[in-house]
Every structure is written in C-alpha cells, then in structure tokens.
C-alpha cells in the first residue's frame, strides 16, 4: 500500500513539474530586443505650370481647378490687321511653379498648329506659323528669331524657372484681295512633361 501511494505522489509531482515548465514557456526564449522608428509622412509635390501672355501679362494655370486643360488667348503685336506679306507676333511664358523638394525639370513642347477658318472665311490656307523657344518675351517680336524656326518647338524648364515660346503668324503675299477682312483661328497645343 505504502509503495503504491509513493508512486502516485511521484507521478503527481512529475506532472506538476512538466505543466509548470510548459506554462512558463518564456523561460526557454532566447534574448531579443525590439526598437521602433517613426518614418514619418511623405508628401507628393504639386505639378503646376503657369502661362503668361506676352503682351497683356494675363496669367493662368495650365491645368484648371477641375483638371481640364486651360486655353489662353494670346494677343498679337503689332495689334490690328495683318497685311499680306507681313507677320504678327505673339508669345507665351511658361512657369514651372512646382513645389518639388528635389530636382524637377519639365519639357514643354508645342504640337503642329491647327489653323481653322472662322465661319465663312477661307483665309486659313494663306496663313503660316512658326514657333521658336526664346529666353524672354521681348524677343518674340524680332523677325530674326524665326529664321530657322519650324512649326514646333520645345524647351526645358528647371524648377521655379520659366521658358518662352514665341509665335510668328504670316499672311501670304499672294492672298487674294477678296479675302480682305476675313479671319482665322490658330490653335497651338502645348504639352509639358516631367523629365
């Protein structure tokens, strides 16, 4: 009887020891240490290009608040009508107004001008247009600037800097006198891409 009791007691003690060890598993863990770092918040920059008319100095954002592309009506110089064989000039200044933290150069490019006749006007075929990148708006009215110009141009604009596109619109000297007083619309799409 005594030996049976002793065996039972021994078994109970063993079970208690095993259960105890399993319960305090932490005692088997190896050393470890953790550290936390707050990386913070990353903020994306704005992509904003301003357009300024050469003559009137009217400024508009290239992208409107609703996300659509802006249209800027340019004034020409000299003002008034164009005589066949002569030219009129316009220009637009593009400003890279981004708040980017690092480098942010953009490339502005013009597409082929689209000359449309206004209602009832067959003037368009007699208009030619040249585009050239310049350093400043006052250069736009200089005919020499357009000697090697074509219908398209491009310019790179660094962060917080400006670029200029100058336009020369010429009326063919063989324009029939019957077209006097007619008008046409010239549209020049401008695209700006991040480099």
């Amino acid at each position, binding site marked *: 009887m005594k030996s049976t009791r002793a065996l039972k007691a021994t078994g109970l003690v063993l079970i208690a020891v095993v259960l105890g060890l399993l319960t305090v598993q932490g005692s088997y863990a*190896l*050393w*470890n*240490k*953790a*550290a*936390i*770092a*707050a*990386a*913070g*918040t*990353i*903020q*994306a*920059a*704005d*992509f904003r290009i301003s357009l300024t008319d050469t003559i009137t100095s009217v400024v508009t954002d290239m*992208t409107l608040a609703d*996300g659509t592309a802006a249209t800027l009506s340019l004034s020409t110089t000299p003002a008034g009508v164009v005589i066949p064989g002569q030219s009129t000039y316009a220009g637009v200044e593009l400003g890279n107004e*981004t*708040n*980017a*933290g*690092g*480098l*942010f150069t953009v490339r502005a490019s013009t597409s082929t001008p689209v000359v449309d006749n206004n209602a009832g006007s067959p003037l368009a075929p007699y208009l030619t247009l040249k585009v050239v990148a310049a350093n400043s708006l006052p250069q736009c009215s200089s005919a020499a600037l357009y000697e090697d110009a074509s219908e398209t141009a491009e310019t790179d604009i660094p962060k917080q800097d400006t670029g200029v596109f100058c336009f020369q619109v010429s009326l063919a000297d063989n324009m029939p006198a019957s077209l006097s007083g007619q008008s046409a619309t010239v549209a020049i799409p401008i695209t700006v891409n*991040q480099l």
Partner: protein
Amino acid sequence: MNKMAKGAIATGVGVILLVGGGGTLATWNQASNVSMGEVVSGDLNLEPGAGVWTNAAGTEIPVISQYKVVPGDALTYTQPLNVSLKGDLMAAKLTVALPDSYAQYAEYGTVSATTLTKAGSAEVLPEILKPANAGKVNASTTFTFNVDTPDRIGTNASADLGEISYKLEQQAPASTLQP
C-alpha cells in the same frame, strides 16, 4: 541481566572504544577546495538613433513632411542602430518589419526590402550577426515614387509610412540544437 544482554553491551562498548580510536579505522584520504571561477553572461542589445531621409540625389532631408516628392524620386530612410552582441557563442538575427499600411501606396510607389550595412561603409551585413558584426549598423529602406505615374496622378498626395519595427533576436547556439 541475562547472558545475551551482557554480551551485547560488551560488544557495544568495544565498538565505541574502537571508534574512539579515530584514524585507526580510516583509509588514506584528503580533501581540497577547487575554484570553478566566475561565469559571466554576454549581452544583446539594440539601440536606435535618429533616422535620416535622403532623396534620389543623396541630399539629406531635414523634415520629411515638408519635402515634396515627385515621380522618379527615391526617398531612402536610413535608421542607425547600435547593435551590442557579446558572447562566445552569440549569434543574432536582425529583422525589419514594415507596417501593413505600406501596401496602400502601391499605386504611387514601391518600398524596397531593408538592407543592413555597417555604418561608414557599404559592407552588407550577413543575415545572422555575430559579435564581430556588432556596433553601429544602418538599416536602409527606399520608397520610390513610380516614374511612370501619368498625368497629374498623385499630386499633393501624402503617405503616412507609420512605424518601422526592428528586432534583434538571439539564435540558439548550435550545440543546444543538437538532439
């Protein structure tokens, strides 16, 4: 008192007398104390320093929340860590856990795996660190703003990168892993 009792008493007295003689019963013996020396434990510790952001040009960014990131930019967060590892059989693994919130910025950018380098050098540390690898360590994670982000997608957006956790865990000495 019977004869048996008298005999037992006489025998007991005799034995006591013999015991009283002490050394006469003992074989040769000698005792001495041996010093086992001190057992000194090692150390494992991880102390973070002040993290630093740099942009794609390698320029340090003092305040990340005031920096405006653009497509193509790559912002690297470098976390200095002072790693202490002492022990003849010490080995530890340094792991980096990025918060789950990183997944929501996949539209705008990618987050690299974290690389561990010895401070002041480009030496990439092994997965399991030994005391020889201890000291100042840099853990670098790079957030790249997708260069092919079209139109004006993501302009003025912000991304809270939350908390990055670093954990240094001791690896059991090989001898204790043997069956």
